[in-house]
């Protein structure tokens, strides 16, 4: 009896020791960190993807929210994690393009992450109240140029996508001295920024198209411009190419998965495969497209390129317009 027990214990111990060495990644659950609040756009996207990936990834994924400081808290947690592929981040345009471009004091840089796949693109739309005098984006530009300081725009806060986005649009249309030409009213989020447009507190909002779609469909707001390459189903507004500013196509939101910079090649490669299969899930596609997003999966290499390009574009605007936060 005692012998059997010893043998069993030994056998179990050997097995326990042997498994990690032999088995492939992943051998235990993977922690996926969402650096924004539960129930928000990133969270919905992340949880929909995690659900779809449950059928693909051999180990469970634990999605947890670590919010704070515009995504910095969660991002830093992943940057400081081991590169073994068991701690990954749902990175987004706010945490990994806009903030790094605008805020030199940010406790991380985008080089400290290794991207394994950008899977979601959110076009930006400029919307005004339907009672507004602005019928086209040109009307708006004309007013800003002729009467500087008369137009107010709302954003989801300093250093948010709508903040820099509006500036980029005005810059692309050749408005000069943007800081004095328009007045910026930061609010608590996209919802509050759109409420400001609805109330007449603000004249225009240029941000992620998704939250603006219901207002446009209900006739409460009018879209003036979208940054997608083709017109959106839900918003019949000129694209940036039609408006003669094709460079604004770089102004889009995105969501992707990243690990710390020393993430293993094995993990990156696996994630590339898993994501290719996961994004095909019909339920995932339904949830994302109903929120107004475009599913566009990039390979790990393309993702890194895309994120770096987006950063460079935004950074150039920030430097040119002196938008840096000190």
């Amino acid at each position, binding site marked *: 009896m005692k012998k059997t027990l010893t043998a069993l214990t030994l056998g179990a111990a050997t097995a326990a020791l042997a498994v990690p060495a032999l088995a492939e990644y992943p051998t235990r659950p993977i922690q996926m960190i969402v650096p924004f609040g539960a129930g928000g756009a990133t969270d919905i996207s992340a949880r929909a993807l995690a659900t779809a990936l449950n059928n693909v990834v051999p180990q469970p994924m634990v999605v947890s929210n670590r919010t704070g400081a515009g995504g*910095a808290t969660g991002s830093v947690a992943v940057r400081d994690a081991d590169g073994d592929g068991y701690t990954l981040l749902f990175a987004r345009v706010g945490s990994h393009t806009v903030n790094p471009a605008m805020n030199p004091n940010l406790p991380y840089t985008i080089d400290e992450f290794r991207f394994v796949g950008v899977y979601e693109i959110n076009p930006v739309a400029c919307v005004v109240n339907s009672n507004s005098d602005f019928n086209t984006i040109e009307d708006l530009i004309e007013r800003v140029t002729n009467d500087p300081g008369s137009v107010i725009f709302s954003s989801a806060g300093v250093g948010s996508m709508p903040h820099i986005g509006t500036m980029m649009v005005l810059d692309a249309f050749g408005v000069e001295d943007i800081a004095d030409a328009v007045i910026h009213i930061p609010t608590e989020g996209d919802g509050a920024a759109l409420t400001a447009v609805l109330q007449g507190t603000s004249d225009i909002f240029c941000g992620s198209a998704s939250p603006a779609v219901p207002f446009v*469909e209900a006739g409460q707001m009018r879209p003036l411009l979208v940054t997608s390459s083709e017109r959106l189903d839900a918003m019949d507004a000129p694209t940036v190419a039609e408006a003669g500013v094709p460079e604004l196509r770089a102004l889009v939101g995105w969501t992707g998965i990243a690990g710390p910079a020393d993430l293993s090649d094995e993990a990156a490669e696996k994630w590339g495969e898993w994501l290719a299969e996961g994004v095909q899930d019909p339920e995932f596609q339904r949830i994302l497209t109903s929120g107004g997003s475009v599913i566009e999966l990039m390979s790990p290499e393309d993702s890194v390129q895309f994120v770096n390009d987006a950063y460079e574009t935004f950074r150039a605007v920030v430097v040119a317009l002196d938008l840096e936060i000190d």
Partner: protein
Amino acid sequence: MTFLEALAAGFALVAQWESIFFLSLGVLVGVFAGAIPGMSATMAVALTLPFTFALTPISGILLLLGVYKGGIFGGSIPAILIKTPGTPASSATAMDGYPLAEQGRAGEALSMSLYSSCIADFISNMALILFAAWLASFALNFGPPEMFTLIVFSLTIIAGVSGDSLIKGIVAATLGLILATVGLDFIGGTERLTFGTVELRGGINLVPMLIGLFAIPEIIAYIRNPAAREQRVRALGHAALKWVDFRRSLKSIFRGSAIGVFMGAIPGIGAAPSAFLSYSEARRNSPNRDNFGKGELEGVAAAEAGNNGVAGATLIPLLALGIPGDIITAIIIGAFMIHDLTPGPLLFQNNAQIVYALFLGLMASSVILLVVGSIAIRVFRYIADIPPDLLFPAVMVLCIFGVYAINNSIFDVALMLVMGVVGYIMLIFRFPAAPFLIAFILGPMLENSFRQALLMSRGSPEIFVRGPITILFWCLTILSVVMIIRATLRAARLKREAARSASRLEAQSKT
């Protein structure tokens, strides 16, 4: 589709075991989640959202609404039993609920909280159904200047919750306002009082601070002097609420519900200020004024009516305009969109049956809350019988666990403990915690709306009197301040007279 057809279709959607099941499940989950310190109603709704992806639209939305309503009530359970508000909105409930539990009247306090919650919830739902369009147009007129004047008026609540000394209340409120400025400056984006730490960039988190301020001082007090606790009678938590007590609180319940409906219809305020406003109005108008803060059932009733009154009304901006009033409704908007429903005016045109199903479900939720709540009370009130040397360590563990779970952050736990020490020092020197908390919650709204308004007007202060709403709130503010000054002077005079007559009596007895 005519109104009756839509109503009938809506009824068909709700009157299925599935809808009622998910609504009840939601209320149940909400009550228990709300009862866990650190797990706020907002978090419970957010965590439930992924489960609604696979449900039919109406089941999913009813599930979320159930969690929301259950959570707001559930928060009052630990507020009463262990002085740990389960959600920020139930802090006002702790002010009278916990003293009642100390006196062995936890059962009465919990029942009062439940009845008051259900009545306020029902009134709020009716307001949503009957006056949605009217209240929504009011909400649309509520820009930054109006918000600023409302918050200035709300700050007069401080006088109502300061207890014995108005001066100490104002000092505590000032401290709260200062702490509210920590983090990234909202308009300029610069760091304020962060001392270079990443954790403080996002500001001080409300929930750890709340729990630190209310629950931890009680634990420290017990550690320092356990004997004081042993002598008190606590194990009498089973007395039923008396009809006379309920009857005399009805006025405060209705007033609190009305305040809740009003505050809920305006985007961006939330349930906590509403609960405090309702509490302070009840105290001002009650004949039992002096008993508030020492264990007054009417105080519990007012606070709970104030925060549950928000629950239905907060759907007004969502359904009528498509705008989220708070984080919870923002999450519910997400649920609408996932099911291809457009929140806002279009919903009444395209999916009228969903709207009416929602209305009917909301009405049912008040009744379900009553049933689920009574069961929960029966389960939870045994907590009042647990001996303190078991209860306090358990509360401590629960607080640390709950606070850690919000953000998986040890920093938040440290914050809670530091705030606990601050709260204990305030307790010793008899500085009230409620004004501190109110100022901390209202501080950012005050500052942001002030600066947004000035940005709108390009620096001209005239914007603060731009319309009837702003002028109304200025008048109300002046009125309250005058009444506070009069009440304070009268109290001082009475005190002086009492002292004088006492000394006269003393002199007489000597001669």
